[in-house]
């Protein structure tokens, strides 16, 4: 290893990335854009859904019922409407996404002990959020009717509200969500996005780096010189690892400060593990770069591989435990899954090296394997 030659390659690489506008955007712009897009896109947390009431009853009880919705953080109350037609217009125009219609004699029927049907109109154009909205409405409705039931029983039997509650709901499920107390999907997904975005962008940079020179013919400067394979590969890898690590820091800042996900773990350990994950991914890209001939091929392979691993086999969207058969095995073949464990541990559980050393060791071994393969694949005298 001659450090001077290694640094000559690394310095040249660094300069080129900073000066080539497209490459610069790919290196530093893309991760930020992906974080914003996926951060808002994947998150199915639906809050502040615009909602309006059509209250044909105008009674104390109907206002009381509506209040349950108005107080909820899931809905953003836009006001009372006069007619169903008015609600239709607003739904079509997208001004509101839910309209709840309270029929006439709502209070009268309830007081008389008759069941009442509440019509709920939901904008179903987007099925995902529509289901979630329906879920919210269900929940709020059963809470409201439970309270009504309780006060009705209490009044009729002349017992206390607590007593009435135990009568109608003898078993009460009490769930405490650990680690992510508010069960915000964003808090869960956003940290995992660090894993996903690094899985896409870090290999992309290295995948383009060697094949780009193959395309232009600049690789012959290397082939025809005295630089060794190891020096060249290390020179290519170093600046790209640095860039991807800087990106990891930026992504972490976005997740914690912009998306507000809590970070409970040890920052030093987290970045230590992240560095090795980045080396893993950069080495993967380098291997791809050595195997293909065109930048297009390198780009396609890294993107397709990144998406398949990230979406299917990383535990980000589908928990690994829920995978079966070969999928379960495949997931264990890629470092993404292990880094997702590191992220979950560091962000939500305050786990450190003591608990997660197997994962970090695996990154080191994985990188060593990939770099070894690179070393054996790189020839300064080629067939074509």
């Amino acid at each position, binding site marked *: 290893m001659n450090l001077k030659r290694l640094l*000559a390659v690394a310095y040249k690489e660094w300069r080129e990335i900073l000066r080539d506008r497209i490459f610069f955007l790919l290196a530093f712009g893309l991760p930020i854009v992906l974080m914003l897009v996926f951060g808002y896109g994947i998150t199915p947390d639906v809050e502040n859904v615009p909602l309006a009431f059509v209250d044909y009853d105008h009674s104390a009880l109907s206002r009381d019922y509506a209040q349950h919705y108005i107080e909820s953080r899931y809905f953003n109350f836009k006001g009372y409407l006069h007619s169903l037609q008015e609600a239709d217009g607003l739904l079509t125009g997208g001004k509101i996404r839910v309209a709840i219609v309270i029929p006439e004699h709502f209070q009268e029927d309830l007081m008389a002990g008759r069941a009442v049907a509440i019509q709920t109109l939901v904008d179903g154009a987007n099925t995902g959020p529509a289901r979630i909205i329906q879920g919210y409405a269900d929940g709020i409705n059963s809470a409201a009717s439970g309270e009504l039931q309780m006060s009705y029983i209490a009044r009729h039997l002349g017992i206390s509200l607590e007593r009435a509650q135990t009568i109608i709901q003898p078993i009460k499920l009490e769930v405490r969500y650990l680690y992510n107390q508010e069960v915000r999907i964003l808090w869960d997904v956003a940290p995992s996005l660090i894993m996903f975005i690094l899985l896409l962008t870090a290999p992309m940079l290295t995948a383009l780096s060697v094949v780009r020179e193959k395309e*232009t013919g600049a690789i012959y400067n290397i082939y025809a010189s005295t630089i060794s394979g190891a020096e060249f590969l290390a020179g290519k890898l170093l600046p790209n690892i640095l860039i991807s690590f800087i990106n990891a820091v930026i992504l972490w800042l976005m997740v914690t400060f912009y998306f507000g996900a809590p970070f409970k773990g040890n920052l030093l350990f987290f970045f230590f593990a992240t560095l090795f994950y980045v080396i893993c991914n950069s080495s993967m890209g380098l291997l791809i770069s050595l195997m293909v001939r065109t930048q297009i091929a390198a780009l396609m392979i890294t993107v397709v591989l990144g998406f398949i691993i990230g979406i299917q086999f990383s535990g980000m969207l589908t928990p690994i435990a829920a995978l079966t058969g070969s999928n379960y095995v495949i997931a264990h073949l890629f470092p993404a899954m292990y880094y997702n464990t590191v992220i979950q541990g560091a962000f939500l559980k305050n786990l450190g090296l003591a608990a997660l050393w197997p994962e970090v060791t695996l990154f080191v071994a994985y990188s060593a394997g990939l770099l070894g393969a690179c070393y054996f694949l790189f020839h300064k005298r080629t067939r074509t």
Partner: protein
Amino acid sequence: MGQTALVTQSGQKPVVQVIDFHKRYYKHPAVQGVDLTIRPGEIYGLIGPDGAGKSSLMKAVAGVLTFDAGTVEVFGINLDSEAAAERIKGRIGFLPQGLGLNLYPDLSVEENIDFFARLRLVSEAELAGRKQRLLATTRLLKFRDRPMKNLSGGMKQKLGLICTLIHEPQLIILDEPTTGVDPVSRRDFWAILAQLLHEQGITALVSTAYLDEASRFHRLSLLYEGRVLAEGEPDTIQALAPGSLVVLQPERQMEALAGLKARFPQVEALGSWMRVFVNEADPPTAIQQVQQVLAGIPVRTIYADEPELEDVFIALLHQQQLARHHPIKAASAETAANVRSGNGVAIEALELTRDFGAFRAVDDVSFRVRQGEIFGLLGANGAGKTTVIKMLTGILRPSQGAGHVAGADMHRAGMAIKQRIGYVSQAFSLYQDLTVVENIRLYAGIYGLSMADTRKRTEWILDMGGLDGHENDQAGSLPMGLRQRLALGCALVHRPQVLFLDEPTSGVDPIGRRHFWDILFDLSRNEGVAILITTHYMSEAEHCDHLALMFAGRIVADASPAEMKRQVEAEVGGLLELTTDQPTLAMERLLEQGYKETTLFGRRLHLFSRQPDSDRRRIPALLSAAHIEVASIMPRPLSMEDVFVYWVTTLERQESAVATGTG
């Protein structure tokens, strides 16, 4: 000194020794049994068209490509393994093919040099000195901070040379360093290369696709389809295909051409002139033989000339039966009837101007092309040739000026123009994944030909382009020459009256180029098609009836090729070629004596003289006073390249004089 050193060293071990070299890519053989010996201090040339196997051989010598059989020895080291190849790399410099492609576009000139130097562990102190010297020699000093991507083609090429030389290698391998560079920069490059190699005693292996560059080498190999056609000194190769070149200007051109083609395999039409290569004949016999064939056809001028390497190359191919003969079909009655009579103007450009922002790409350009005329537009890269064509074909709007193409106004009748013209662009316009016939049908469909017409034209194109037997081949799999003729055929599918060709012959081998020009000649003479063509092969410019030379967006000369040569001769005098055993020394002496236009061509010198007759006596005397022996000094006819270089250097000088005068 260099030349004497060369003589004493020729007994030494060769720098490169290649024996029975074979290289194949998958099933396709690229090089089949090539031998090569390069002696210390030589500039050795590999000359051949694309696909001849030059690059494969050079890469193997540079130790960056494996090969299938044979031995390659460099500095006495047998390159039989990757480890063995590593042992020569400290002593070689390799410049791969592609103008400036191996350089780093976003780095400055200086940063590029620094990278190559650090890669080669050149100490900073040594680097500073060498960088200064090489930048000064190549006149790139004032561009040292400019990003490489903003350099002109000629400057990129010189930077590539500096980067290859920065670690002072003993052997440099340059793969087509002059391809895609304009003639002025090419001459400049050869001069610098010769100077640097001479100063440092470096051996060089250089390839080129330009046959007229052969005289730049001490020795060379002519390659064709992976085999050596001939090797040795330029003169020796010339002698392998003995014969004479007869140049004549006959009256009834088509009749004369048909007669000559039937008798001689190598006949070329150049405007109103013709060149005939007569095998194994001395000049008087050759002229006699030609005159016999032309019995009855009046001939205005006829004389014998020395054949050029391209003639020899093709003669060698014929000798070894590698060349296929392409007879030109006589014009059919139907097409002959299409000939428009008279001297109608087919293309007229009137004060065309085009600005791109603050940059004026085309400045006040006017010219006329008559029906049936081949009109050549010459100029260095960026002179504005393509922009002119784009305006005339209606692809680009002119900022000012007017034009008429095939009787339609360029401003108002864009669609009508497109129906009446054919256009073969620089960038290849065929669909590579479609077959030959599918491509033709596609173009026939675009121009709305009827079924019957499509069938007729498909047949005509296959016949014209010599594409029979390739009907169902994919366009992408055809050799360059065939592809280019298919592109031409597609552009002709709707029988246009005007044809625009933008550098159509780049990358086509000499035989393919001659075939292409035969077709163009036939089109212009038999079908009355007006042809406007741009080319960077100066030898091709001779084929044109009329030439316009563009410089910085303007037309600076507009005449027939012969007229242009006469103009330059009137300005600077005749060209003398001098052969001597010490050319570098002789050149120094001649430059001292005020022969400013002296250039080195391998072992020969070219110089311009206002009094050629008295100089032919004076110069040998002058040099023998300095103990330099002159073997011969002969007047030579000017080539189009001489004309081009003269114009461009004169204009550049004027421009820089103006620039320094005002600034």
